[in-house]
C-alpha cells in the first residue's frame, strides 16, 4: 500500500489514546499494510503502532525476526495485531529503548520479561500468544503507543535513564 510519514513528538496525536477497531471496519487491512510498509521502509524498526502514522485506531505490527537481538531468541515473525491486550505479565527486565517518534533520545525502561497477549489478526481471528524477551518488550512498547504513552512516561530518572543518542 504505502509508506507513511512517522509522526515525531511533540505531535499531539502521539499522546492520545487510540480507539478500539470496530468489527465491521473494512479498512483495517489497508492500515495493517501501511504499518508493515512503513516499518520495513524504516529499515531498523522492529515495530510500529498506528498512532505513529497518525491513525488513532488500536492496530500495531511487530517483527523482531530481522533484528540481531530478535534472532537470538524465539520469535513469532511478523505479528499484525488489532485491538491487542496483554492478559498476563511476569518477570522484569531493562532495555534501553529508542523510539522513531522520539528521535535522539534513549531511555532505560523496565518491562515485563514474559507476556501472554491476545489480539485479532488481519483475518478477524482471535489469537492468544506468549512472548518473552526482546519481542515481548517490543510488543509492550508498541502497545504503549496505543494508550498515548511514550517511553519517556516510563523512565524514573532523567539523570540515569535518559540519554541523548549519539548523533550520526
Amino acid at each position, binding site marked *: 500500500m504505502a509508506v507513511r510519514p512517522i509522526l515525531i513528538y511533540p505531535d499531539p496525536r502521539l499522546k492520545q489514546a487510540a480507539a478500539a477497531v470496530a468489527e465491521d471496519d473494512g479498512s483495517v487491512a489497508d492500515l495493517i499494510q501501511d504499518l508493515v510498509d512503513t516499518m520495513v521502509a524504516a529499515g*531498523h524498526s522492529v515495530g510500529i503502532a498506528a498512532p505513529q502514522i497518525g491513525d488513532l485506531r488500536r492496530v500495531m505490527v511487530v517483527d523482531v525476526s530481522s533484528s540481531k537481538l530478535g534472532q537470538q531468541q524465539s520469535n513469532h515473525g511478523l505479528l499484525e495485531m488489532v485491538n491487542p491486550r496483554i492478559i498476563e505479565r511476569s518477570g522484569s527486565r531493562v*532495555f534501553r*529503548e529508542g523510539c522513531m517518534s522520539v528521535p535522539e533520545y534513549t531511555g532505560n525502561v523496565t518491562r515485563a520479561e514474559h507476556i501472554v497477549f491476545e489480539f485479532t489478526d488481519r483475518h478477524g481471528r482471535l489469537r492468544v500468544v506468549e512472548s518473552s524477551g526482546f519481542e515481548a518488550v517490543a510488543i509492550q*512498547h508498541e502497545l504503549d503507543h496505543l494508550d498515548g504513552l511514550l517511553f519517556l512516561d516510563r523512565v524514573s530518572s532523567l*539523570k540515569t535513564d535518559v540519554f541523548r543518542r549519539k548523533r550520526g
Partner: protein
Amino acid sequence: MQHFALTIVGRDRPGIVAQVTEILFNLGCNIADSSCSILGGQFAMILIISHPQFTSRDSFGEAFRPLEDADLTVALRVLKPGGEVPPHFEGEICMISVYGADRPGIVYRVAQVLGAKRINITDLNTKLVGSEQRPVYVMIIEAILPAGVSEQEVDVWMTPLREQLQVDINVRTIPQVEL
C-alpha cells in the same frame, strides 16, 4: 553563548529549588542541564546555565546573595568554550552494583579498576543503608564499555575485589533497542 556551572548546597528544606530558579528566571538565565538531589541531610543542586549577555562571574552581580543569606553555599564556575557539550556515549551501557558491609575503600577500589582500564563512569551513586549496628554500603555505577570490552570481562576484573572487599558485585549490560 557563555555557559556556567552553578552548584548550590545547603541543609534540605522545602523551597530551595523555587528560590534558586526564581533568581535564575529573573536574571534571564537558561538552565541547560541540571541534577539536584538530597545527599544526607543536604540538598545539592548542580546546574549548567547560560545567559545571552553574561560573560563572566561579575555579570551575576549580587544575584546569589539572598541564597547565601539563607545558609546555602553557592559556587559558580565559568566554563571554557565547549564545556557545556555532553560527550558522545559510544559503546554498551553497563550497570555495576556493589554492596556489602561498610568498609573503607569500596568506591576507590572499584573506580580504580575502571579508571585503569579507561572505562568511562557516567553515573555513580552510593548510599549507606541497613541498620546502625549492621551498616550496608550500596554503590551503583553506570559506565560505558567501549568496543571490545564485554560484560564478562568487567566481571572478571571485579573478581579480586569481591574477595578483598568482601562485597557482592553484579555486572550487567543494558541492551539498546530501536523500537
